[in-house]
């Protein structure tokens, strides 16, 4: 999983691009891993034991759903509503899968295994390259590096538990939106995507005080629907560097 050294500049472009994908994937994994420490610590302080906390990261493996489950339980919600909230957030990954299916072209075992690492980060990284081969590399490398580091960090956070104290002291809570922003950034190439992102953010914030945790983000998908149906059509309105299906 460790990327090759970047010290010597490669002569041709393709290996360089794949090397950069591996480096970026590991970077995403490290950033997300730091976030995993806070998940482990928060889950344990919310009443989950270490095994339950680690099981969440291993088998649910989609951060927002995990945080939602733990958050609803911590705020006194029933396990049923906690699971429902987590699953509603998980529908996001169905949409990501819909987006990625034609790009990754996974079949059989690859699809069954690949589905587990279908998350925000692996999706965003897979959408950067323009061809199936590099998209698969970005998806798999990011998914696996996040999986390994997220689970290690969860275990560390859970075991350290209350000893870690307030993770906001280290600014980890600011690292989370920064990470999502960095994943969003390469897609803000057209007026359509920029206005969609802004409107979705605004709608989510309007809903925060009035909706259960997790719902504002799901509701923001409605902005994508509205822009698709009501917005301008045609190639001119498409994002300039939108991912293309490979030949």
């Amino acid at each position, binding site marked *: 999983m460790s990327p090759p050294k970047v010290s010597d500049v490669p002569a041709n472009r393709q290996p360089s691009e794949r090397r950069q994908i591996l480096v*970026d994937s590991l970077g995403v994994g490290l*950033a997300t891993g*730091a976030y995993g420490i806070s998940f482990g610590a928060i889950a344990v302080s919310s009443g*989950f034991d270490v095994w339950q906390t680690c099981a969440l990261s291993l*088998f*649910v*493996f*989609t951060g927002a759903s995990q945080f939602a489950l733990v958050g609803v339980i911590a*705020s006194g919600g029933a*396990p049923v509503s906690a*699971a429902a909230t987590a*699953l509603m957030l*998980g529908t996001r*990954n*169905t*949409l*990501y*899968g*819909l*987006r*990625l*299916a*034609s790009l*990754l072209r996974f079949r059989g075992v690859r*699809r*069954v295994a690949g*589905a587990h690492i*279908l998350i*925000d980060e692996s999706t965003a990284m897979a959408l950067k390259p323009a061809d199936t081969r590099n998209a698969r590399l970005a998806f798999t490398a990011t998914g696996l590096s996040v999986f390994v580091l997220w689970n290690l960090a969860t275990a560390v956070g859970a075991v350290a538990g209350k000893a870690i104290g307030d993770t*906001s*002291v280290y*600014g980890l809570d*600011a*690292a*989370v*939106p*920064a*990470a*999502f*922003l*960095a994943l*969003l*950034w390469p*897609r803000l190439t057209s007026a359509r995507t920029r206005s*969609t*992102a802004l*409107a*979705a*953010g*605004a709608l*989510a914030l309007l809903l*925060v*005080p009035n909706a259960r*945790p997790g719902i504002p*983000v*799901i509701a923001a998908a409605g902005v*994508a629907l509205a822009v*698709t149906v009501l917005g301008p*059509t045609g190639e001119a309105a498409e994002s300039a560097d*939108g991912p293309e299906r490979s030949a």
Partner: protein
Amino acid sequence: MWPAIIVTAVGCYLLKLTGLSIPDRVLDRPLVRRLADLIPVALLGALVAVEAFSTGQQLRLDARLAGVAVAVAALLARAPFLVVVVSAAATTALIRLAA
């Protein structure tokens, strides 16, 4: 607690697998294609806003704002992902230290 964990784990996996298993031809429709392009943009935009400006069900402006502003500057300067994230966290941590 275990039943909720198991239901969430199985459900979340099936949601992922369903997305990858939807037939290719669904994406051949321009409308579906555009929608699938915009959905991650909308969800990521919402995640940025919610993670930066709220805590639980309360809107909140705090030191995270400075962190995100530094992240924007880093992105404008084409900094790598890790630099963006670390500079955001460090900025926020330093402001809290100073406060």
